[in-house]
């Protein structure tokens, strides 16, 4: 054909190059890293599982757990999850917490998502310098206004880490106290839930936890001005701490406590530990234990100390001791504090205590012993030691009162349900769940037998009626179709009829078969 010079063609390789490994889970961006509103790790895990369209328990057992305990096969049940995380409250602090198990979970997530900033979602960077006891609340707390705001502006709904700390009882943005009880079912919620509901929903009744601020039903405990100021000062400091967590290369070591205390003691009181402890309003023995490295101060106390020393919490924990300016302290000793931090307990005045206890016995509504203890600013053990009978009487009264209140609210609830008479009527279990009882409503039944019976009967009647209806429908269908087929000349067998039914398998039901027999006999196909 043509006699041109042959120009060879290029040959290209098709083999794929080796690519760096991709992350198993999506590297979801945690919210608020580097700010005081940083997300907590549990909220992150729940959001991550949503993005993968999995329930959080599946995500935990299938992807995270194999990292922590390699080689085990985990089932999906609650029991298995407890086995991994530990069930009691001390260990459920894990996902926020300061123990080594948090480190394992964070490490696992770090490997799975290839994100290196996840340690900022926990308190583990401060684990060695802040005591883990009393750091976190045992129950969940949240600000309903924040939730509602996020939902209405279509922002991502999450749980800030700061809400989980015991020392924080006020929302940093709205200055209203955090709620601890769901306003639908009045239950407290545990910290760590591997429920499948998204962030912002009550795990016991499924209700939305947000409230618009002008709702009438909303009733927040009002705070006194000094309390509020103290909280805000504390929140500022803690927020600062949380915001600098991502920039820390490693957790602060325990030696820091000793170091910083020594620096202060030397400069301010010339090495006199006891004078120093008086200055910061703590017991001598406590300060000695910190100083020698046996104990680590709790967060509340740390805040108090920082307050007295006119320094911020972050500076206290991280600033170089050589940079600290001690000069302002000596002059500030005589200044009266702007707002009083919570006071230590003082010696008990026994006469006064007795009169207060007696008064409490007659008070209405009966106060709890805890409340009385707080009023007297003492320890419960002290009161028990001196006035055991009185204390017992007070607590018994209180418990009975609470019980009556609960029963009363239950009664009102049941009455409302009965009066509402909804259709289809709910079962007793459903009613109990709505009220907040998660397991069998036997107690409810024992207290209000008549009302529970009414509810159950309605439900049962409805079930029976609907099953009767279904049977009737099946019969009608079978009869109709059989007659049609017969008119067309086709044998009405069960196979033929079932094909024409709306739900073919229904013909197997007793009603269907019985009706079929009947019709066939009528039409003459059987004897």
């Amino acid at each position, binding site marked *: *054909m*043509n006699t*041109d010079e*042959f*120009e*060879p*063609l*290029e*040959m*290209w*390789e*098709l*083999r*794929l*190059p080796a*690519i*760096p*490994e*991709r*992350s*198993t*889970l*999506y*590297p*979801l961006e945690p919210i608020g890293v580097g700010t005081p509103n940083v997300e907590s790790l549990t909220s992150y895990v729940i959001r991550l599982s*949503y*993005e*993968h*369209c*999995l*329930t959080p328990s*599946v*995500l935990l057992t*299938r*992807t995270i757990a194999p990292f922590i305990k390699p080689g085990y096969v985990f089932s999906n049940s609650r029991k298995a999850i407890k086995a991994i995380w530990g069930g009691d409250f001390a260990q459920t602090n894990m996902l926020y917490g300061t123990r080594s198990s948090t480190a394992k979970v964070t490490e696992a997530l770090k490997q799975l*998502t*290839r994100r290196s900033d996840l340690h900022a979602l926990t308190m583990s960077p401060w684990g060695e310098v802040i005591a883990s006891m009393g750091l976190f609340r045992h129950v969940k707390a949240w600000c309903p206004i924040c939730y509602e705001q996020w939902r209405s502006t279509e922002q991502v709904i999450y749980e800030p880490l700061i809400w989980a700390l015991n020392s924080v009882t006020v929302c940093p943005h709205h200055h209203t106290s955090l709620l601890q009880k769901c306003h639908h079912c009045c239950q407290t919620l545990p910290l760590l839930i591997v*429920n*499948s*509901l*998204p962030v912002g929903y009550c795990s016991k*009744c*499924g209700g939305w936890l947000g409230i618009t601020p002008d709702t009438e039903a909303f009733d927040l405990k009002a705070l006194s001005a000094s309390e509020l100021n103290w909280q805000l000062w504390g929140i500022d400091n803690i927020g600062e701490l949380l915001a600098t967590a991502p920039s820390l290369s490693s957790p602060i070591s325990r030696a820091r406590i000793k170091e910083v205390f020594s620096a202060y003691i030397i400069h301010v009181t010339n090495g006199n530990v006891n004078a120093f402890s008086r200055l910061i309003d703590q017991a001598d023995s406590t300060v000695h234990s910190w100083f020698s490295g046996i104990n680590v101060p709790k967060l509340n106390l740390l805040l108090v100390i920082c307050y007295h020393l006119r320094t911020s919490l972050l500076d206290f924990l991280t600033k170089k001791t050589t940079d600290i300016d001690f000069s302002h302290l000596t002059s500030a000793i005589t200044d009266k504090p702007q707002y009083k931090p919570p006071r230590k307990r003082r010696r008990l005045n026994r006469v006064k205590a007795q009169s207060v206890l007696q008064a409490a016995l007659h008070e209405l509504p009966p106060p709890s012993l805890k409340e009385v203890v707080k009023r007297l600013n003492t320890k419960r053990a002290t009161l028990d030691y001196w006035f055991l009978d009185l204390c017992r009487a007070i607590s018994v009264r209180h418990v009975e009162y609470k019980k009556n209140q609960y029963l009363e609210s239950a009664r009102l609830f049941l009455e409302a349900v009965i009066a509402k008479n909804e259709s*289809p009527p*709910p*079962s007793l*279990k*459903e009613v*109990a*769940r709505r009220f907040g009882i*998660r397991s069998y409503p036997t107690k409810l039944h024992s207290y209000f037998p008549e009302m529970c019976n009414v509810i159950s009967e309605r439900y049962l009647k409805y079930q029976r009626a609907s099953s009767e209806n279904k049977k009737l429908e099946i019969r009608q269908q079978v009869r109709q179709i059989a007659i049609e087929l017969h008119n067309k000349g086709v044998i009405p067998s069960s196979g033929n009829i079932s094909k024409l039914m709306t739900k073919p398998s229904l013909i197997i039901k007793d009603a269907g078969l019985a009706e079929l027999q009947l019709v066939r006999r009528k039409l003459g196909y059987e004897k």
Partner: protein
Amino acid sequence: MPNSYRFPPELLAQPPQHRLNYFKSPDVTIMHGSLFIAYRKAYRAIHEPAGASIIMVMGPSGVGKSTLLRLLEKKMLESSLIQMETRPGWIPIVCVQAPAPGRGTFRWKNFYKIILLAVDEPAIGQKIHYDDSNIHYGGDGALRIGPKATEDALRLAMEKALIHRHPYTLAVDEFQHIRKMAGREVLEAHMDCVKSAVNATKIPWTGFGTYQLINFLELSPQLSRRTKTIYFPRYRIESDEELKEFLRVLEHLQYRMPLSETPPLKQQYWEFCYERSIGNVGTLKDWLTDAYDLALSESASTLTLEHLQQTAKSASECEQMASEAMEGEEKLTDSFEKSHNLRFILGLEKNPPQKRTKGSGQDSDQQRHQTRKNIKPFKRLPKRDSVGEQSV
């Protein structure tokens, strides 16, 4: 002549399997003209879709579309290696193959599963769809989670996977399987499905398929507006250039065969080679591999016409392939006609288009034989009077 493209001479001493593997070399491809053009077009289209939701790469079966896909995948991965180090969650391109439906219409659920597997998604069988109806408290008070791994759940999971992994595109081979056994309405529904997936994830799809894909475009103008088509045609004998390229490929292949005597494919057998491969390089290569294998088994010193004839596809098969290809090409040239029609409708063209019968002549012939429809009386055809040097 330089010998770099030729086989290394020591291969002749090696066992036949090695020689066959050398020629077969599944991991290497010849970059011939139309493959190169299609590759460049596709690469550019993927990196800059310019608003297109779907990029369609069409060509006759056997031309090398799957090879093109592999090539694209490799090149995209190579150029993204550095970025992948810094972004561990990113996948540059996701390549899947649309499963053939077997019996009935296309199964989307399977397809979603395939995509999820391609991105290494964990726990596919446990996917749930997060909305009110799926997670709720049932009538008896227990928390009920709906059925897992339903089609909706897998679809949502696929969308989320694409959103988070954010590839340049989702490349689907054998795209024409979506069309299997689908009437017009069902086909529209399928394409709507694709469109909504693209809208939700903002990731364009790239479909590789045969000329049957043209039917998709004819479905709705809305769809074809968001579609970019890339044609990967065979080499046609009508065009001198294309034939020259085909012969070049043939010559290259003949030199690549490890035989003691180079077979005169280009010089003597080219017509037969063209006849039984209808200009598709893919078909040609497979056929030559088969023939070479036969020659090796006979320990022949060269490839003869008999080898070619024994391993060639039958004439009726090739006829079918050819007519399929030509039908597709016909539709393409039909679309050029439609462009002429469009210009006429829009007023850009004075001359109305002719009704074209199959195999008729060039456009210039038509113009000479046109009927003038929209001419008012007493108006002369503008071209009729000579202006300057022009004369009709």
